[in-house]
């Protein structure tokens, strides 16, 4: 396409020498892989580690000797690291890094499963996959809410509050009307209510966005906690027994092994989350709304000079984010549980982490949320087989990963340039 001669303008060549970021990560991966192979190999037992394709020990399974598997997969991780170190990172970075991480995790699992008490040397994959998605669900909704706000330049640390408000409103209205759909709408409104406060105070009154987000979280905790104690606790039947969505089995797709039962026998919320990821991803990068949203989050002045209404768009998107997070909150109270005080318990902040770790993109956020959900699920599984690995450390994983990502140790994370900055015309 380009026929122009490249002008010899001074563009600073970033000369990092041999130790590029890819190579550093490769070296790290190599080291981790080798250490994993040795340590996990030594700790593993010769018992086979079985990965069953069902919810129980029975049925089809893949199985590998504990020691052998631990060493093999550790070496796979090391090999991926070596590949990066050898300079293959330019073309294959993503694949090699993925392979390395998966290899390391499998090596770790071989050790854990083979070292589990007798009769428990298996990992039911359906449970793991389903649990991963279930635990990731609020994270996906929350992170999507973050994407909508932050892509248009408003930092959203109020995700926790939006989820909580959604969960509460869904439970309350769902119970009072007896209608599950009314509950869903109310949940969306609840999330939007917190968003409205966020938008008005940060866009109109120019309160610092992070300050406002933090305060709104506390407000949501207080408000829902207060009303919970005053209303729900006194009369559970009248206020806190919302109807629940059942599982909707999708014909054909639900017959696929592992994925089918895990993914296609889910509730409305699971499907909604996945659809929303796709819709927002496409909308953000392929529609007029998306183009304008991104421009407002990156360079509002430029958007203004071509006639985009910066503040209006920010209002709209923040409210939309609240709606999405509110629905995410309902995935607690309209599916499994009744409302309890502070029931989100920090998931909103993991959603924020997923948003950042997923680099402010819907699909990235989905992957990050699944990764965090997997860590969570793995913790539960390891607890069940009496692992020596404390589940608390696995629970820390999302937060640690985010810190590493933000510090630039695992790739460059770049927020929308105008994220957090109020736009003042003129």
């Amino acid at each position: 396409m380009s026929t122009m001669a490249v002008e010899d303008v001074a563009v600073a060549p970033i000369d990092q020498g041999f130790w590029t970021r890819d190579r550093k990560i490769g070296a790290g991966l190599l080291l981790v892989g080798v250490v994993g192979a040795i340590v996990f190999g030594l700790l593993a037992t010769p018992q086979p580690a079985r990965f069953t394709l069902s919810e129980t020990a029975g049925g089809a399974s893949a199985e590998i000797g504990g020691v052998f598997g631990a060493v093999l997969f550790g070496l796979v991780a090391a090999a991926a690291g070596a590949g990066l170190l050898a300079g293959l990172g330019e073309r294959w970075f993503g694949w090699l890094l993925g392979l390395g991480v998966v290899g390391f995790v499998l090596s770790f699992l071989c050790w854990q499963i083979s070292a589990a008490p007798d009769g428990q040397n298996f990992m039911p994959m359906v449970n793991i996959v389903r649990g991963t998605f279930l635990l990731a669900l609020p994270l996906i909704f929350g992170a999507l809410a973050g994407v909508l706000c932050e892509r248009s330049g408003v930092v959203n640390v109020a995700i926790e509050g939006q989820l909580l408000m959604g969960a509460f409103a869904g439970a309350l209205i769902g119970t009072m009307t007896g209608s599950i759909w009314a509950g869903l709408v109310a949940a969306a409104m609840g999330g939007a209510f917190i968003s409205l406060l966020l938008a008005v105070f940060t866009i109109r009154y120019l309160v610092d966005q992070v300050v406002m987000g933090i305060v709104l979280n506390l407000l949501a905790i207080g408000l829902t906690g207060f009303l919970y104690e005053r209303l729900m606790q006194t009369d559970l039947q009248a206020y806190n027994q919302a109807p629940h969505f059942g599982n909707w089995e999708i014909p054909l797709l639900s017959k696929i092994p592992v994925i089918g039962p895990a993914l296609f026998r889910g509730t409305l919320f699971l499907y909604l989350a996945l659809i929303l990821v796709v819709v927002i991803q496409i909308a953000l990068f392929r529609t007029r709304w998306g183009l304008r949203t991104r421009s407002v989050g990156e360079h509002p002045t430029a958007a203004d000079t071509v006639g985009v209404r910066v503040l209006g768009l920010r209002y709209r998107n923040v409210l939309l984010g609240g709606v999405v997070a509110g629905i995410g909150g309902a995935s607690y109270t309209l599916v499994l549980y009744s409302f309890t005080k502070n029931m989100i318990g920090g998931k909103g902040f993991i959603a924020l982490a997923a948003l950042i770790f997923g680099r402010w993109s819907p699909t990235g956020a989905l992957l990050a949320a699944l990764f965090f959900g997997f860590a969570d699920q793995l913790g539960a599984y390891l607890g069940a087989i009496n692992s020596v690995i404390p589940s608390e450390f696995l629970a820390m994983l999302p937060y640690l990963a985010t810190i590493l990502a933000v510090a630039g140790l695992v790739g460059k994370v770049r927020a929308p340039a105008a994220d957090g900055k109020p736009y003042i015309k003129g």
Partner: protein
Amino acid sequence: MTNANTRADSPSPEESPAKHRLPRQNAPNTAAGPQPEAEGRESLGQRFLQNLWAANTVTVTVLAVVLAMLAGAVLIVVSDEDVLAAFGYIFARPGDALGGSWALISDAYTNLFKGAIFDPAAISAWINGDGTWKPVFAPISETLTYATPLVFTGLAVALAFRGGLFNIGAQGQAIVGVILAALAGFLLPLPPVIHLIVVVLAGALGGAIWGFIPGFLKARTGAHEVINTIMLNYIATYFLAWIIFQKGVHDPTRTDAISRPVDPSARLPRLLGSDLRVHAGILLAVAVVWAVSWLLNRSTFGFEIRAVGANPDAARTAGISVTGTYVLVMVIAGALSGLGGANMVIGSTASQLTPLVAAQIGFDGILVALLGRVRPWGVLAAALLFGALRAGGNSMQSHSSVSLELVTVLQALIVIFIAAPALVQAVFQLRAARAARLQTNLAKGW
């Protein structure tokens, strides 16, 4: 930074309906004096009233509290079934609904007051000789007990704020502080006074470590401290949950998540006898407020903190190490939070580690710092207000059966109103004074 300045200046009275009656007085670069000479002839009383009604810090704060209480009153009413039912026939018998509402609200807020400041009944009982002095001071004692840790965490947030950093990590720093303090409290066999000192220092050290990490990452890689401190909060939370169950830490006689108690030799003495909970922590807190105030306003390092916080470019040009200041500020802020955390096991609220031992003191500290206008003595005042609300909230809960959670709502609302003085001004049509604005010059994004 210029960005931040325009921000701070922009909620101008154009937004408020008062603009037609009042001349524009907060143009960015005019002298800060409240009124020009022209009004010098008014009586002292008039001027006092005028100043009172100007949107100065105190007025805005008081009005924010009033607004929040009003909102709280509405919440109390709408969440009461009986009164709501009375509102159903308000047109038939308005007295029922209004009277019921009034009874509900006044009862709740009276109990709030009694639990926070004093109970007239206790005083009259004391004067009549029917009771002792202790019930008279019990509310104040409770208020001070709840305020103490908030002073520390509030200072931690405020100090970082002054240095241009938003320390959301006070919670995590307090947690690591309380862990180290507790460990030192039951693992080290030391003689009384020395043990207490060591435990306090251990708490500060724990917080300092947890503050160092985001400070260092900010200085070294530019990673935003807001993200990192949020993440570190949760890492600390899980670390606490883990360590409680470790050998030597866990109370062997219990099955639930609780640690051994801190040795008596490491606890802060109670000030008013063993019946009242107020302890020496509040004295330490006041001393630390004084120290932080001195540090900020009277020391060379404080000068650097304030310069970096207000204008890092000018600070750098004047030879101040901006990155070094960031790290040190976060270390000190962390140490302050850690002291707050230590308070939770060596004061009178608890002596063992539990998953919720640090309660919400870190997050509340953010509100306290904002309410205290990020000034040390302001933080002390704000912490006392929050402590009073909390102590009163307990009494409100037990005597009026109005949930303690209302206090959280009130606290959040107060800070929201404070944070947007333009809103309070609009509601009350105040004249604007420059000093009233919350200085949140942090609009730097991620």
